[in-house]
């Protein structure tokens, strides 16, 4: 297993573009701390974002995982190209000839993806912990360590998303087209949802079906955190809107995303096995 990771590490780390993207990704993860510096000071209106409670435990787990998950696109580029470059350089052929089995090949990519997700999760955990300890109004142990399932959701979300990227890289074999396909797919999910609700069934049932789409299932893992902010809640109450949403992630939402991740990895393997190189 270590050998497979080392193989992938040599390939990635010697590629300047990948190296730059990976480093920028982790710098961006850290940069979430900069949000604390957002301050508006316009005469009577004084606004310091850090004072609005976004760094309060346990809310910070929700907020930070949601925001940092947006940066996953950087790694998506790395992952799609690490897969499709093997095709364009024909190095996949040479790897197999040199004695890597097709299973090991997919496994080395999967292990890399899981490592990326794991390191990101640890990173977000550490950054959030530090920010929380500085800014949070509540510092009791029990509160700090509640709602940690957002971190697990973050991990699953990244693994599922990156597996999708891997699969697209193998399927399309060209990184630019694969990324285009990714965007196309996200639009497609919305279009299908729209068509279902408009023509085929009620909007409620369409919404249920939409939750089974791959990208939607991944975004369901961490729901938007903004309406949970007290400031936003206050405004909501003033205009008489009930803003009680369910923020928690349910076991079946995890299950759907994990099933999709497994399907993508399995399909990648099948594709690789069936294709002549």
């Amino acid at each position, binding site marked *: 297993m270590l050998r497979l990771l080392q*193989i992938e590490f*040599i390939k990635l780390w010697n590629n300047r573009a990948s190296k730059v993207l990976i480093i920028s990704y982790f710098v961006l993860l850290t940069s979430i701390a900069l949000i604390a510096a957002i301050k508006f000071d316009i005469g009577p209106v004084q606004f310091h974002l850090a004072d609005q409670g976004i760094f309060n435990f346990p809310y910070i787990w929700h907020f930070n995982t949601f925001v940092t998950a947006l940066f996953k696109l950087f790694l998506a580029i790395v992952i799609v190209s690490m897969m499709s470059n093997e095709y364009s*350089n*024909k*190095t996949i052929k*040479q790897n197999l*000839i040199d*004695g890597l089995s*097709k299973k090991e090949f997919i496994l080395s990519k999967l292990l890399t993806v899981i490592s990326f997700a794991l390191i990101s999760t640890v990173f977000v955990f550490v950054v959030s912990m530090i920010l929380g300890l500085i800014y949070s109004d509540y510092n009791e142990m029990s509160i700090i360590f509640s709602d940690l399932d957002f971190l697990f959701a973050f991990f699953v979300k990244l693994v599922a998303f990156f597996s999708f990227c891997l699969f697209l890289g193998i399927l399309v074999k060209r990184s630019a087209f694969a990324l285009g396909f990714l965007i196309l797919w996200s639009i497609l999910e919305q279009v299908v949802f729209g068509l279902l609700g408009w023509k085929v069934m009620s909007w409620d049932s369409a919404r249920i079906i939409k939750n089974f789409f791959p990208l939607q299932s991944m975004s369901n893992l961490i729901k938007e955190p903004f309406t949970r902010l007290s400031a936003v809640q206050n405004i909501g109450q003033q205009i008489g809107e009930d803003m009680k949403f369910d923020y928690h992630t349910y076991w079946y939402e995890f299950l759907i995303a994990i099933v999709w991740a497994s399907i993508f990895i399995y399909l990648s393997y099948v594709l690789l096995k069936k294709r*002549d190189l």
Partner: protein
Amino acid sequence: METILTVNHLTKKFGYLTAVNDLSFTIEKGNVYGILGPNGSGKSTTLGIILNVVNRTSGDFSWFDGNTTTHEALKKVGAIIERPNFYPYMTAIQNLKLVCKIKEVPETKIQEKLELVGLWERKDSKFKTYSLGMKQRLAIASALLNDPEILILDEPTNGLDPQGIHQIREIIKTIASQGTTILLASHLLDEVEKVCSHVVILRRGENLYSGPVDSMLASHGFFELRCGQLDKLQDLLEKNASFGKIENFNGTLTAYLKEEMDAESLNKMLFEKGIILSHLVKRKESLEEQFLTLTKNN
């Protein structure tokens, strides 16, 4: 003799096209094999199948004693297919280290192999800066990293300039002289003739011949003869049962043998009959002539 590779009734179809048709042959340790065939005769497809990158339609093959999986066996094989494939952004050393990881061999051989192919001074240059000849030589170095039981080369001199071709041939000869089994696919007959002891000849995916180069045709060779009394000579030879076809071309007689005869006894026989030769050469058909005969007749 130890068997390295056994191929049994291998068939590969690309849709309606049959690239390899019911192909069988075995590779024994210590010989240098050539796979011959015109372009599109299925050479590369066959190599692709035994190297695990092309899926077979039917038939089977086994490496060594048949007890190892193909990808484990490939760790004891060195192979280059068509074009050298490496990571363009990595240096020669980095690329070879990666191969060592894949083949699970220590990195200690890298220097030795790079020196063998004459690339040690350029070890820290990126692969993409290499010329085609250097790329091909790096591929050979990479294939040798594990001191393979068998070296498989597919068109190793394709696209190279004469100097590059010469360098690659010298390297192949060096490797062959060290006792490594070599399987060389090529459509360049003189290339195969120069290094191979055994050949497999393919045409449209079918096996026309496999065996030693010498016994490819049941031929005893031919004489090229010149003398002052050409008509008398031709007459004499036509009556001799040892000779088959006799051709007269530009004052030179070419007499094909039906049975073994050496030049000395022919010379003696003709002298006794009063014919004095001005030119006497005994030759075997070149591989090219044999190949053309073989592919024409079938």
